[in-house]
């Protein structure tokens, strides 16, 4: 504790000192960035935590002699955003391309830190991407990133556990899900249909699917409202699941404990992004052959409405040196030839062309008992409802959600609706302090 917290401060101190020096020295001379280096010999730096991006580099370099691409993994998404903010503030070391979760795009775009890609030709690409994914990178008339991977909300269900409970088909509606939850709960003291320890992204995807749009962003004015009927419907449903002890509130996702309960089948479903397809086999090898993928349960029988749970995109910082070359590479790996090697390596991309491709849809997935998971997830992707917006300060907002939700999940004090209301108040106070007009 003692020594290492001091040790932690040393790099921070050095960084702040360096930032100070850099700040004072760049003030006047930083205006010419952008034009130099375009075409000819460009050296691109890409910050990304997506391992498949590198796979597009050889093909791109071959097609663009003289251009070299350096893909750097700067760490987790929050590490990356911090580093980018520092680099922009310092005025040096700003990369040419940066990966963003969808919710982080407005955070950088609104203060003018990202290039509007329509100036480079991105406006023509709209129809080739999934509408909901495209909606994530648009802000007003501008396009500030290109979608690179996608997380359609889907339900991963353990068919063996369901069979034990006497259920042979995936719950098609949330009512079915509720009935299934009771049967699975009856299997044993550790058996639950799902776990929840305050998963904000899941709750938002539930609201999203139900048709609630709690955030509306228009330039710098932000509205937050959890009182719409559709939002209330989703929140009340999940509250009922909590109240009737149908959810495991002791196991937190991504913990060792979570792995254990997934392996032994005592957690029967996971409502998460489609990206879980590639993670689940590592987390739950013992459950091989048991899991299946289905669309998220629907609010009304016969509907096909979906939502998103995660996904990311790439943008070009305003301070980047080689914008045209950066855009060429961006276009190449999110839309052009560079897509295929990424898809072959397991990337799930929001490209209409790829999702319609029979080769992608019909491949049987051994872990999922030979199910063609690509087809299900492609359908889930197309079902994702449009019109959702994240507030520009969502990165901060999500970090404090746990503080507020914790009492509910540990001792049952309060309700989800009350947590969301307090959360809203905190978001309003913070947003206004940050210069937005939030109500």
């Amino acid at each position: 504790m003692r020594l290492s917290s001091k040790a932690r401060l040393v790099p921070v101190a050095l960084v702040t000192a360096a930032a100070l020096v850099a700040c004072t020295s760049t003030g006047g001379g930083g205006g010419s960035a952008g034009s130099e280096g375009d075409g000819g010999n460009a050296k691109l730096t890409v910050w990304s935590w997506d391992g498949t991006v590198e796979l597009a580099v050889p093909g791109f370099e071959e097609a663009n002699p003289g251009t070299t691409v350096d893909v750097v993994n700067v760490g987790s998404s929050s590490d990356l955003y911090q580093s980018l903010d520092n680099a922009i503030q310092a005025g040096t070391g700003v990369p040419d391309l940066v990966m963003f979760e969808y919710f982080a795009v407005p955070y950088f775009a609104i203060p003018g830190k990202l290039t509007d890609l329509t100036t480079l030709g991105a406006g023509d690409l709209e129809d080739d991407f999934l509408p909901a994914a495209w909606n994530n990178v648009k802000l007003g008339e501008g396009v500030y990133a290109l979608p690179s991977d996608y997380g359609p909300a889907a339900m991963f269900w353990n068919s063996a556990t369901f069979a034990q409970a006497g259920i042979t088909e995936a719950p098609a509606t949330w009512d079915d899900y509720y009935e299934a939850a009771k049967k699975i709960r009856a299997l044993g003291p550790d058996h639950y249909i799902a776990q929840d320890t305050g998963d904000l992204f899941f709750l938002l995807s539930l609201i999203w699917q139900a048709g609630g749009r709690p955030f509306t962003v228009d330039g710098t004015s932000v509205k937050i409202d959890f009182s719409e009927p559709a939002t209330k419907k989703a929140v009340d449903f999940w509250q009922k699941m909590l109240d009737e002890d149908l959810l495991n509130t002791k196991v937190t996702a991504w913990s060792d404990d979570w792995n254990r309960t997934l392996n032994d089948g005592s957690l029967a479903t996971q409502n998460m992004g489609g990206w879980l397809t590639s993670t689940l086999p590592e987390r739950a090898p013992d459950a091989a052959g048991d899991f299946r993928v289905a669309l998220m349960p629907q609010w009304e029988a016969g509907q096909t409405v979906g939502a998103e749970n995660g996904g990311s995109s790439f943008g070009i910082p305003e301070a980047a040196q080689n914008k045209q070359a950066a855009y060429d590479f961006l276009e190449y790996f999110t839309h052009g030839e560079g897509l295929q090697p990424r898809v072959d390596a397991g990337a799930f991309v929001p490209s209409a062309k790829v999702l319609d491709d029979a080769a992608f849809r019909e491949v049987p997935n051994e872990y999922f008992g030979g199910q063609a998971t690509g087809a299900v997830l492609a359908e889930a992707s197309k079902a994702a409802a449009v019109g959702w917006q994240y507030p520009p300060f969502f990165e901060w907002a999500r970090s404090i959600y746990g503080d507020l939700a914790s009492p509910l999940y540990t001792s049952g004090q309060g309700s989800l609706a009350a947590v969301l209301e307090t959360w809203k108040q905190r978001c309003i106070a913070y947003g206004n302090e940050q210069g937005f007009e939030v109500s």
Partner: protein
Amino acid sequence: MAALTHTGPVAGATAPASTPRRMRTRRRQIGWAFVAPFGALFALVFIVPIVYAAYLSLFQERLVGGRVFAGLANYTKLAADPQFWDGFARVVRFTIVQVPVMLLLAMALALALDSLRLRGSKFLRIVIFLPYAVPAIVSTLMWGFMLGVRYGLFRNLNDWLGTSLDPFRPGATLVSIGVMVTWAFTGYNMLIFYAALRAVPHELYEAAAIDGANQWRVIRAIKLPALRGSLVVTIIFSIIGTFQIFNEPQILPSMVANSGITTYYTPNLYAYNLAFTGSQQGYAAALALVMAAMTIAIAYAVQIRGMKRALQD
């Protein structure tokens, strides 16, 4: 050329008279040269960041509109921030309980080692000190696994005793962190005490033996007074340390669900989250400076009191 050759002898002529003064200035310059590397480094990693933090604390960062001068607004906001005071009160409570427990334990161990009645005291010394060498992150992970009720040791213990104790329920988490910290730092403090005991002149023990003092009397009259100076030092170190708690509350939430650890659990954690997820560097800088000032004030008060007692006795 001519002028140059001419000035040489002239300068040489005046040399004898001025030598002592010149040597003195040169000696002074050499002194500075020796200190310079340290001074430069000290300024770079210590003075500059503090001055920069003080400067930053006068500004507010805004996503819209950028950095604006705010005067003392960050400080007045901090004074009224319930989250800051919640974290502050928590580390104060923690300090009041954990520091005495840890130091008494360390003292008892040091006395036991010094009594020479233990077998393998060198080995014990190493073993007790060893946790200090374990990185805090590793130790947190380790304790997290041991105290977790859904896996590992504590689950077995609960099964065996038929209890359902949870060391990471919101009310108990701070105690569990106290256990981790005590485990990690008792050995370190014990070594300081032990060194102080070894420095006691042997004649005192001989005199005590001649006077017929028993072991308890020796401890009360010789050993405990000998520990007073190091006690002041260890108390100050421990207070500074507990005020900086960061690693444990930073790591535990990713291991345990709903342990009650908030983003403002300790002031250090709060500052970190303000700066890095809230992009409120100015506010975080103000918090850091205020915390530093309070820590220094408390440590100083302890030192003054300790000194006074030491002088009186």
